[in-house]
């Protein structure tokens, strides 16, 4: 298993500002992911963040809005830029932990973002 922490756990931000969310894993992992979960909905993948390469964004998400850093094998950040109320959501990071030939994915505790 793995322990994943996120900071901040929650924040209330004003429209037009940016927030950077940090994700720390207690072991080295190659693949990390960022998800968004809007109220009443399931998780939506924003991007895949592999160390040493540019993040890969899913349809509907762009780097200018959600820049991601992955400076090493245990850490990643997601920035929500130029926020609007529609960005109010829970943001989750996760990491694939390879115990062997198959993979398990573990999630951080999430960041609850409210944009006013």
């Amino acid at each position, binding site marked *: 298993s793995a322990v994943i922490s996120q900071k901040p756990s929650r924040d209330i931000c004003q429209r037009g500002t940016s927030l950077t969310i940090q994700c720390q894993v207690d072991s080295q992992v190659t693949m990390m992911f960022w998800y968004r979960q809007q109220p009443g909905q399931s998780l939506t993948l924003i991007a895949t963040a592999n160390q040493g390469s540019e993040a890969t964004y899913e349809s509907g998400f762009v780097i200018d809005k959600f820049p991601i850093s992955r400076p090493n094998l245990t850490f990643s950040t997601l920035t929500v830029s130029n926020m609007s109320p529609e960005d109010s959501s829970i943001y989750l990071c996760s990491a694939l932990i390879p115990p062997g030939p198959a993979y398990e994915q*573990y*999630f951080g505790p999430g960041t609850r973002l409210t944009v006013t």
Partner: protein
Amino acid sequence: EDKVVQSPLSLVVHEGDTVTLNCSYEVTNFRSLLWYKQEKKAPTFLFMLTSSGIEKKSGRLSSILDKKELFSILNITATQTGDSAVYLCDPLGIGNKLVFGAGTILRVKS
């Protein structure tokens, strides 16, 4: 396009009942299927299924995968109010990218 369909979308039962949650999927280069329980913010991992027909058990929870029919079920016996949550089914496919279903909302009444 990868897709996951979970059923039922929601379910209300009484304590002690047994429930079966269903998950059908279509995923390119399927590797394994994961079940999660989500109560507040972050999902917690329940099971990883890789092989067909091999039941995985953890206490009152069990799950099985059918790779031929592209289907998995999650069973919960003797349900308790603490089982109330959203249960997510997530096949792991190409690029190790999870494809989340909409989830099944389970509410257990005392």
